[in-house]
C-alpha cells in the first residue's frame, strides 16, 4: 500500500515543459487513472513517480517521504510499460521469477510464489512457453504477474491495453479492475481511453498539455467537468458547445443563440450570481450539452423545441449518433437505434434541461450547471438559417 503525492512538480525536456506545476494526491489502495490525449504529460508523470525522471521543481513523496533522489529500485514500485519488456529468451516462469531471483529468494519459495500468481492470472498452463509464443493478452498477463510477484508498494501501468484488439481490451479491463480489488494495492494507471478511465478508476486525474485540469471521481468528472477541455476529453462523442450572448434583464438574464434562447428568471438566480461578477453584457458564453442530452423530434413536440437539419447519421447498432446543423454550428445527438432519420431531414431538437452547462467562452471554465428542470427555460430563437422552416407562432 502506498500513498503517493506530487507537490508542484515541473519537468522540462529542453524547451518543452512536459509537466507544469502538477500537484496530485493518490490514496492508499486507490485505482487512480491519469487520463488525457497524447502529449498531456501522463507518461512523464508516471516516470516521475517511479523515479525514471527527476523533477526540475517540486517534490515527489511516497508515504510521506520525499523521494526525488531515491533510485527507482529503492522506491519499491512496479511499473508495467506499454511494450511490456518481457525477456524474449526466458520462459514465462523465468520472466515472472526474475525479480525474486534478484532478491535471492530461496528456490522453493520462488516456485510457490510464481505458481500462486500464475493461478491468479490464469496463466498456469503457459509457464514453459516463451513470450514469442503467447498472444497479446497472455503477454500482458505475464507482465502483470511479474509485477505482482514483487509485492511492491504500488503498481504503475502505462497504457497497458493500448496494443490489444478492441475485444481483448474489454475483457482485460474487467480483469484488471477485479484484480486490483482483490490485491487491493495502489494502482496508478495511465490511459488516453476515457472509457477505460470511467470504467476502472476510483478517481481520474484529467491532464492536458502538462497541466492537471481536474481530479475527481468518474461521476463528477463526467457530470461536472471543470472546463471545456475536460468535457471534451471525458465522454464520447465529446460534449457539444454552442456559443451564445448574454444579456441582463431586470428580472433575470438571457442567453441568445440564433437557434434558441435560454432564460434564467429571478433576480437571485444562481446563474446570474455566478456570471454577474465576471461576464459583461453582450459577452460570449458557451452552452455545453452532451449528445445524449440532445433530443431529436420529427415534429415540434413542445414549445422548447427548435429547428435543425440532419447532416449525417452514424448508426452504431445499440444507438445512433446524429450530426445536426444548427445554423452555422454543428452538434451531435444520440438517439435510439429505432429512430430513423435521413440526411438533410428537417427536425426539431430540445435539450434535457436538467443537464445543461454554461461555460466561459474565453477561459473555457464551467460556470454553472442546471442540475434540475426549470432552472433554465429554453425557447426557440428568433433568427432562422433554415429558410424552409417557419418559426413557431
Amino acid at each position, binding site marked *: 500500500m502506498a500513498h503517493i503525492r506530487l507537490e508542484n512538480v515541473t519537468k522540462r525536456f529542453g524547451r518543452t515543459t512536459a509537466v507544469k506545476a502538477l500537484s496530485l494526491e493518490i490514496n492508499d489502495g486507490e485505482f487512480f487513472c491519469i487520463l488525457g490525449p497524447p502529449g498531456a504529460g501522463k507518461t512523464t508523470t508516471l516516470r516521475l513517480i517511479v523515479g525514471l525522471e527527476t523533477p526540475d521543481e517540486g517534490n515527489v513523496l511516497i508515504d510521506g517521504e520525499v523521494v526525488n533522489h531515491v533510485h527507482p529500485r529503492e522506491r519499491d514500485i512496479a511499473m508495467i510499460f506499454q511494450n511490456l519488456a518481457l525477456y524474449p529468451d526466458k520462459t514465462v516462469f523465468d520472466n515472472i521469477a526474475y525479480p525474486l531471483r534478484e532478491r535471492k529468494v530461496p528456490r522453493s519459495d520462488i516456485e510457490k510464489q510464481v505458481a500462486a500468481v500464475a493461478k491468479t492470472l490464469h496463466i498456469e498452463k503457459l509457464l514453459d512457453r516463451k513470450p514469442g509464443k503467447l498472444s497479446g493478452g497472455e503477454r500482458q498477463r505475464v507482465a502483470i504477474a511479474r509485477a505482482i510477484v514483487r509485492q511492491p508498494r504500488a503498481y504503475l501501468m502505462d497504457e497497458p491495453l493500448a496494443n490489444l484488439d478492441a475485444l481483448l481490451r*474489454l475483457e482485460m479491463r474487467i480483469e484488471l479492475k477485479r484484480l486490483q480489488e482483490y490485491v487491493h494495492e495502489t494502482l496508478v494507471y495511465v490511459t488516453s481511453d476515457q472509457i477505460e478511465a470511467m470504467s476502472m478508476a476510483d478517481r481520474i486525474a484529467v491532464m492536458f498539455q502538462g497541466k492537471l485540469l481536474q481530479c475527481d471521481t468518474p461521476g463528477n468528472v463526467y457530470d461536472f467537468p471543470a472546463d471545456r477541455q475536460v468535457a471534451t476529453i*471525458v465522454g464520447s*462523442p465529446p460534449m457539444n458547445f454552442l456559443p451564445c450572448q448574454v444579456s441582463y434583464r431586470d428580472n433575470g438574464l438571457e442567453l441568445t443563440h440564433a437557434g434558441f434562447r435560454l432564460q434564467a428568471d429571478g433576480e437571485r438566480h444562481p446563474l446570474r450570481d455566478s456570471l454577474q461578477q465576471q461576464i459583461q453584457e453582450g459577452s460570449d458564453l458557451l452552452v455545453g450539452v452532451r449528445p445524449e442530452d440532445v433530443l431529436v423530434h420529427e415534429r415540434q413536440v413542445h414549445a422548447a423545441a427548435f429547428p435543425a437539419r440532419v447532416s449525417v447519421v452514424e448508426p452504431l447498432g445499440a444507438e445512433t449518433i446524429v450530426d445536426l446543423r444548427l445554423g452555422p454550428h454543428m452538434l451531435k445527438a444520440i438517439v435510439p437505434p429505432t429512430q430513423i432519420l435521413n440526411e438533410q431531414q428537417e427536425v426539431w431538437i430540445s435539450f434535457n434541461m436538467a443537464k445543461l452547462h454554461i461555460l466561459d467562452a474565453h477561459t473555457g471554465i464551467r460556470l454553472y450547471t442546471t442540475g434540475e428542470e426549470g432552472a433554465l427555460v429554453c425557447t426557440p430563437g428568433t433568427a432562422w438559417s433554415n429558410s424552409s422552416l417557419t418559426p413557431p407562432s
Partner: protein
Amino acid sequence: MAGIRLEGLRKEFGHVVAVKELTLNFPDGKFAALLGPSGCGKTTTMNMIAGLETPTAGAIYFDDRRMNDVPPGKRGVGFVFQNYAIFTHMTVAENIGFGLKIRHVDRATIEKEVKKVAELLQITDMLDLNAGRLSVNDMQKVALGRSMITRPRIFLLDEPFSNLDAAFRAYMRGELKRIQREIGQTMIYVTHDQVEAMSMADNIAVMDFGVLQQFGSPDEVYNRPVNTFVANFIGSPNMNFVKCSYRVEDGQGWLVQHNGNARVPVDDRRRRLLEQRSDNAELILGIRPEHLHLHSQQDSPDLLSVTVHFVEPLGPKTVVHLRLGRDIVRAIAPAAYRAATASVQWIGVDPAFMHIFDGNSGLVIR
C-alpha cells in the same frame, strides 16, 4: 458505373495465406469498410486493390476493367495513411495543391481547386500557414485534402485516425462521412475499430484470418450477424453468448443452459429448424446487452435469476455484469444504477432479439 469487384482474390506470403478466395462487390460511390482484427487480411486486400501487392490468384475489376496488371500510379487511387507525411516546409495550400502542380495544371485552376477542398474540410483559415506548425489533427486533414484534390477514382484509407486523440476521431467520423457524401467518390476504409466502420460505412466487409465473414450494411451486420465471429466483433459491449442445448419440456421448445439451470422458450419457426437437425449438438444463445432487461424483482415467471458480478458505470450508461449460473452476461442499465455485488437480480431475454448459433460451426440458425 459498376464499382469495384474482387473475384476469388488470394494472397500468399510464403506459407501464410493472408487472403483466401475473396469475392466482393463494392458498389460505386459508396463508403465501404474493411473491418477485422490484426492479421485478418484487410490491409493486404487494400494493398491489392491499390496495386501495391500482386494477387497470388484471382482478379480485381474497376468498372468491369481488369486491373491486375495496371500499375498503382495508373489506377486512379488516392491514399490516406496513418502517417500523414505532408510536406512540412510548404504551406497548407501548397501541400493540398501539390498533386495538381506535378501534373502541370495551371495556377488559376490549382487555386480554385485548393479553395474548394479547403472549404470541404473546413480549413480555409489555415491555407497560408506553414504545414509544419499545425497540430497532428490538422495535419491529417491536410493529408486528406492532398489526396482528394486529384479526384481519384477511389479513396483508400488505412486507419488514418488511429494515432489521433479520441475527441478528434469522434469528430472526423461525422466529417469524413459528410465529405464522402458530398464528393461522391468510392471510399474504402480499413479499420479494426467497429465503431468507425458502423458509423461511417454504407457496407462493411468483416474479415477474419483472410476469410470474408459477412458483407452487409451496419444494420445487417449488427442485427443479423451470420456467425458468432461477426456477432462478437460488432457492437460494444459485445454480445452475450451462452452455451445451451435444445430440449422439449412441457410441450414447449426450450434452450437449456449448459452451465446452469436457466432456460428460455424458442419461437415456433426456430423450433421447427432445431427439431430438423439430426444431432443434438451444442447451441449458442446470443443476446446483446441492451436486449437483456434488468429487474430487481421477479416481476414475471419468465425472468431468470442472476447475481451481480460487477457494476461498470460508464458515464451515460452503466454496464452490469451478472452471473447466470456459471456464465457471465452483461446488461445495460441507466447511468444512476447501482447494485451490490452478489445481490440477486432478474433478467428478461427479449425473444425478438435472441440469436441462435450452431455450437460447432458458429453459424446462425435462422
